[in-house]
């Protein structure tokens, strides 16, 4: 799975995974988040606009990444979720811990 990274002017790391965040690819997200945290960037947004499918393995990876970011005194937020991703979040009651923001830019706006 291709995951690109950019850093905003405010120092937020925005990750853009492309494709299906499932059993096959979930570990890749964790690797990238671990490396971002190791670089000292602990405010992360995962832009899900190009993730057309999320399953419970992908969800587990997002939760693992969220915990890792908080352990590093930061946070991980998600943005631009597609309908399928929103459905999975809602059915698993995780939309409260992983609230989808409209865009990567708005995820850390009001602190």
């Amino acid at each position, binding site marked *: 799975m291709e995951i690109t990274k950019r850093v905003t002017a405010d120092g937020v790391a925005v990750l853009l995974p492309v494709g299906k965040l*499932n059993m*096959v690819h979930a570990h890749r997200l964790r690797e990238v988040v671990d490396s971002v945290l190791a670089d000292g960037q602990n405010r992360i947004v995962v832009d899900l606009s190009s993730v057309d499918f999320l399953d*419970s393995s992908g969800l587990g990876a997002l*939760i693992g990444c969220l*915990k890792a970011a908080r352990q590093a005194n930061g946070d991980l937020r998600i943005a631009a979720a597609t309908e*399928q991703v929103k459905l999975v979040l809602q059915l698993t*009651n995780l939309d409260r811990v992983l609230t989808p923001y409209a865009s990567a830019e708005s995820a850390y706006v009001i602190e």
Partner: protein
Amino acid sequence: MNNAAHTLIIDTPPDTLDSVHELLRIIWEKSPDVSAEDQIRFETALIELASNIFRHADDGGGISCLLSVEISADKIEANLRDTGQPGDIQLTGVEMPDAYSESGRGIALINALVDEFIYAREGEQNVWRILRKRTQ
């Protein structure tokens, strides 16, 4: 509409979940009257089930799985038959784990997406069925 049935033999490895997504892409193309909501919910359930089979039933020698998907006027149904280890899972009454748990949501998610979810061991095979009643 007439009933439409599609079958796929999955040998994993090397086949992956992508082959299941690809089958469904073809099915949705041929059945444009299936609502977007039904497509999303059924596909999410089927991929979750296939992941579960690939992950838990493989003793190292790979798995062969026969998948059949059938669409009729009022329901979408998938039947899977695999050669993996016996499934040792509870299908009903499974609740979502703690919000910060990193696993254990698959079965509860399938139950939330479909109207029927059945497992049986028949001879040397696992037999699974998921059925979703179509929204009208």
